[in-house]
């Protein structure tokens, strides 16, 4: 008898704080109403009830583990729903999705991939389902259904430049992409990254579209040190193995926060954007929670999280500029963000990649 009583007391102690906490987390919601956050509707009553029934959803994501965590934490704080993330590199995730889907055991409800060719490939294989989230009508056309696929672009990340402050004098810091052709960066002073995924491919394609093949040939003549990932390039820059390098603002800022004497350069001729793509899985088992996520990511709250927590560029008008380290970048409306032709991203990849490898002297 006593144990039953103590058990129910304990249960009360467990439940009461939970109720209190949820009252703070979700001040404007209850079971039979719409989900409204800061006076923006995230889900109507029907979807919201179904999403709460789901409680969580599974996200297959090729973003970095840190970005995944920041994103799911922000979403959880906003809605109380949980994201179970399965992170992997884009190539690996792609193979896994196609294999699981082929065997009829795809576990993902939502798929987030950082590569144009791969998301298009998933669409061709009928793995994705079309869904237009709330606020979709306000999304600029360039971010809607690229290549007519059932997916959209919730955020853009940018390629920039970076330098080692201990090795490069203020006056020598390059200001534009074209400054990298200066002879002073010749002979293993320049760090570059091979085209492995979406970010590097966007950079190489835009540079080639804008400055012609001669530009990349000029880079090759500089004899840069070429790594397999931007993270490794930034590490080489931090250690002073190279003086100037291509870099992703978020990882350069992270290295600086860890004590490396490195700094981001935002080139005057443009930060080269690369897209991230998100879509609902056709076989989603918890599509409702996943739909609430898609609604949220385009809402002011979601877009703000992208800028402030992930350090990337939101796509909706009026959203703030990204917070990178301690710097806030100019917002989309003020910054010069450039990107290559979306169709060429798919079409020219194989050919340009092979030419690139040859230009850089990696293959004969």
């Amino acid at each position, binding site marked *: 008898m006593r144990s039953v009583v103590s058990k129910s007391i304990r249960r009360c102690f467990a439940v009461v704080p939970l109720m209190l906490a949820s009252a703070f987390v979700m001040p404007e919601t209850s079971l039979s109403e719409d989900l409204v956050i800061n006076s923006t509707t995230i889900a109507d009553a029907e979807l919201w009830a179904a999403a709460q029934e789901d409680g969580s959803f599974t996200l297959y994501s090729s973003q*970095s*583990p840190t970005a995944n965590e920041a994103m799911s934490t922000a979403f959880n704080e906003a809605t109380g729903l949980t994201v179970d993330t*399965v*992170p*992997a*590199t*884009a*190539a*690996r995730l*792609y*193979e*896994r999705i*196609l*294999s699981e*889907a*082929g*065997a*009829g*055991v795809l576990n993902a409800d939502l798929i987030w991939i950082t*590569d144009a*060719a*791969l998301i298009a*490939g998933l669409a061709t294989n009928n793995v994705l389902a079309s869904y237009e989230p709330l606020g979709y009508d306000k999304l600029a056309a360039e971010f809607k259904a690229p290549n007519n696929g059932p997916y959209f672009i919730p955020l853009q990340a940018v390629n920039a430049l970076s330098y*080692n402050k*201990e090795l490069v004098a203020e006056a020598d810091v390059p200001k534009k992409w074209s400054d990298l052709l200066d002879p002073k960066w010749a002979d*293993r002073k320049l760090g570059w990254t091979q*085209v*492995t*995924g*979406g970010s590097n491919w966007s950079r190489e394609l835009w540079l080639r579209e804008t400055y012609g093949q001669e530009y990349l040939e000029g880079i090759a003549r500089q004899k840069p*040190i*070429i*790594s*397999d*990932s931007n*993270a*490794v*390039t*930034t*590490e*080489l820059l*931090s*250690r*002073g*193995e190279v003086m100037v390098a291509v870099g992703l603002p978020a*990882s350069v800022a992270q*290295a600086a926060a*860890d*004590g*490396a*004497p490195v700094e981001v350069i935002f080139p005057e001729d443009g930060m080269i954007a690369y897209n991230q793509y998100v879509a609902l899985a056709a076989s989603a088992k918890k599509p409702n929670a996943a739909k609430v996520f898609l609604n949220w990511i385009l809402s002011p709250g979601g877009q703000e999280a992208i800028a402030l927590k992930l350090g990337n560029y939101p796509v909706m008008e009026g959203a703030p500029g990204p917070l990178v380290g301690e710097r806030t970048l100019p917002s989309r409306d003020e910054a010069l963000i450039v990107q290559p032709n979306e169709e060429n991203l798919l079409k020219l990849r194989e050919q340009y990649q092979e030419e690139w*490898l040859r230009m850089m002297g*990696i*293959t*004969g």
Partner: protein
Amino acid sequence: MTGAATLRLSVHYLPLGVLAALLFVLILMPIGIIVYASLLDTPPRPGAVVGAMTFDHYRDLLNPANLTALKNSLIIGFGGTAGALVIGSALAWLSARTNAPAKVLIRIAGVAPMFMSSLVTALAWSVLASPISGQLNVILKSIGLPFVIDIYTLSGIIFVMAISYAPYVYLLINSALSLMNPDFEDAASIHGASRWQTIRLVTIPMVMPAAIGAAILVFVLVVENFPVPAILGSGGERIQTIPAFLFRLMNVAPSRANEAAALGITLTIITVVLVWLQRIYLARRSYTTVTGKGLRPRLIDLGPWRWPAAGLVTLYLLIAVVLPFLALSQTALSTRRFVRTSGDLFNFATYDFSRLVTLAADNRFQHALSNSLLTAAGCAVLGGILHFTIAYYVHRTRAPGRGLLEQIAMLPLSVPALVLGLGFLWTWFLLPIPLYGTLFILILATAVRFMPQGFRAISSTIVQVHPDLEDSAYMAGASRLRSICTITAPLIRTGLVSTALLLGILAMRELSSVIFLFTHDTMMLAMVIFDFWETGSVARAAGVSLLYSFLLLAITVVVGRWFQLRE
């Protein structure tokens, strides 16, 4: 045949059938799928349309990039093997056959690099000798020496391979030298041969089988080694090798799986040919000279060379073990990422031991640690049982096809680990059992990868126990399984347990065969190191490397003690 007899026969062969099916799925299917994938134009995926047949991938192998990778692999293979042979046999000879002082030191130098795994050694040398910020180069510059050591070169890779694989040579040659019958050498010197002539004409030819065996083993290991060229081949000059190239082909988006398969088959052919050559060579030799009658071979007096020899051993120990250890410690502990002078390097105020503690307490490390231990335990137990069953069938039954069974069990020796892992990946995607993403697939992969070692080790103990013992139990009415469990297994339990421990340690160190199979939830320690390195967190990679090496050392010491107690 009557129905009852057929039934009895089928019951009799049922376990064999299960075993054959298991080996088919675990070994033949992965290899088969790789061959199959190398001939198609789309990757093998469940439910997908089967691609068209093509020989293009093999034709593409002849393009300059692949030929360069092949050339680099062979250069590194020969160079690394030569280096490992020189170091390993010199240490073995000093230890077993001379009166060099500080034998303990020589023995430590002989085996110590093993605890650092080639992944960790490569990582350590990348921070020691990168051309500008490498710690050695910073020191050289500080004391005004005008040369730079660049590890991101072919010779750098060869050097790291030589250090990493010298212990294998040391162990094999050391045992050959210690077991050698000294009568032959005595005979030579009695007939007036000089010391050098004795070594050249008697000692060397007598350890030749062991040396050739070691050389081929090391060559195969070096050629299929993936972490060393992955780490040292991308920092400066881009040095592509076949395994590193294969890994990159799988990691570009979208992955070029069919080309990777064709490359994997090429690598397999190289290793198969080598293992085959080794068998032919060893089959032609007689081992009778290396019987070991309990005679201790005579020690050679080095005279005035005793101390220079000890000095060289100390120098080697410094280079192979102490320097990498210090380099990793500095990288893991110092809060200063940018090192310009040796003052920065030795500024102990920037050292922070709590970094290592934080890393050890980190969720990711703990998770990987428990995954590593579980996989090691799983490989030891399940692998042990599997290898025992095969060895039992091969040596204790007259089951048909047992010769074939042995051949299949030894097959993973000739299949590069990276290729085996790729085959596993595709096999378990195609089979309707959702093993991908679980620890179990890592356990199976390591159990298969180390099947030759496990099978050999258990076989050697099984053949020592006469079958009559078990058969009497069987005749007295016990079932076969019961006879095994109560008679044979207890008799060879020392051998069984040692094999299980060996399997556990090997699994704990493994990276190549599981690198395509792990997911975020099933990372093991070696993968965490590689992943930290790949994502630019060299300090954390160094920290986990240190903890990992200590763990391997601790396990091996405990296991070593256990062995000694049993001997």
